[in-house]
């Protein structure tokens, strides 16, 4: 046994095995890499890309300014400034909404935390910029991302679920939140 090991050492057996392996890969050349800007990988269905704010089908924002996403975010990406809907003291919305995408780790916990599904993760990932200040996104930018990534919008909650519409009887006139 010792003789065999010695024989393997002096004949460079292990090195030759390794070189045979690399040569096999050279001969059966099948690249597993993609030429990225020219060809792109098929993303999985549950891909977690850029974050976006969503709207209802009538164009109003979903966000109710509850701050739960801010609380759920592990890296403090999100900053929400919540305020009352003008003229309707029982309803709130996010008058300002910032995301510092330089810190985001795309865990999706904000999306899970949102009670009204106002946040979504898109399939965008090409967000390399020359100035990292461009990655501090405000509400308008996030809504724009949502608009281009989610063309099919949900109905308002009270129209989706007739049983919860009871709680919303007071709001016959749907408020136009934000701008």
């Amino acid at each position, binding site marked *: 046994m010792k003789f065999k090991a010695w024989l393997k050492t002096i004949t460079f057996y292990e*090195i030759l095995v*390794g*070189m045979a*392996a*690399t*040569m096999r*890969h*050279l001969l059966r*050349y*099948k*690249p*597993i*890499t993609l*030429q990225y800007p020219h060809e792109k990988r098929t993303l999985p269905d549950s891909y977690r890309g850029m974050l976006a704010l969503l709207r209802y089908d009538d164009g109003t924002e979903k966000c109710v300014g509850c701050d739960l996403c801010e609380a759920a975010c592990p890296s403090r990406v999100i900053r929400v400034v919540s305020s009352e809907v003008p003229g309707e003291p029982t309803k709130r919305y996010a008058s300002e909404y910032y995301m510092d995408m330089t810190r985001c780790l795309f865990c999706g916990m904000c999306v899970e935390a949102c009670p009204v599904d106002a946040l979504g993760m898109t399939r965008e990932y090409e967000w390399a910029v020359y100035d990292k200040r461009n990655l501090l996104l405000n509400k308008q930018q996030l809504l724009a991302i949502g608009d281009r990534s989610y063309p099919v919008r949900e109905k308002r909650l009270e129209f989706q679920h007739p049983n919860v519409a009871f709680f919303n009887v007071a709001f016959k006139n749907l408020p136009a939140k934000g701008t």
Partner: protein
Amino acid sequence: MAELALRMAFSLAQITVVMGVIMLTIMVLTLAERKVLGWMQDRMGPMEVGPYGILQPVADGLKLFFKEDIVPAGANRFLFSLAPILALVAALIGFAVVPFGPDTTIELFGIQFKPFIISDINIGILYILAFTSIGAYGVILGGWASNSKYSLLGGLRSAAQVISYELNVGLAIVGVLLLAGSLSLVKITQAQAGWFWNWYVFAPPFPQLLAFVVYVISAVAETNRVPFDLPEAESELVAGFFTEYSGMRFAFFFIAEYANMILVSCIAAALFLGGWNAPYPGTALARMGFVQFAWVENVVWFAAKVYFFLFLFFWLRATLPRLRYDQLMRFGWKVMLPIALGNILVTAIAAYLFPR
């Protein structure tokens, strides 16, 4: 006077051609290395510049040409500039005695020239060994003059490594020299003419197989290539002795490394694998009647052997991880050196008992 001028003109033409071929080979090598390495690792290698990335060396060269030439603060400016030149000159000057083709003489304007070797001096191999040793100065001076701890460590490592492995290179060659009885690369190659078992790897009375293995391993170590690339271990020393170099000075070191690779491949081909000789006696072209074109076949055989070694360099790089420093030194001094010495002993006895 006219004869001297003519000789100089012819030598200059030869030098220009050889340098051109070497530079072209280096350009091809930089691309080929990345391509072969990529293919072996299931990648594609460079693909962007030109079709299948074949213009990548041109792009790299242009980039290095136009990059800013930075001299770090506190660096010794003179030595910092001198080191790359020293490394490159030492690497390129060895090609003066490498026979690229058969030892024919042509007569031009009444003067005899040897077209395939710039200078057939009778101590050719010694000359090459001397100048590759000077290349170590370039490395260590570059490391020291950069005023950077990584460069200094890389330079020191390189000096220690080159010195220990050059010993093995020299001793591995001695066996061949004993059999050939000459230091001239032309004479050594001529002695290996005929069938391929006359090559000194397989040659009777004592095949130089051990010396060949020792030489190849030491040559890899001497050119600072993987798995012996400790001087420029990028995971430990950023880039080793040329950490602080940029632009053309970096390019000089880079070219020097590749020129050294080609040089040791040329020596290995000439000493162990019969140089320009085909594996069969004579040349096929001469036998078919094209005697005046037989040199083409010889040059092709030489190039094929050199490229085999260059491919071996890439192959080893794709396969092997880097050695640790103490492993490197132990391997050099405790394994390679005794083998090389034993080889000399046995070869000397064999050459004495069976004189050719």
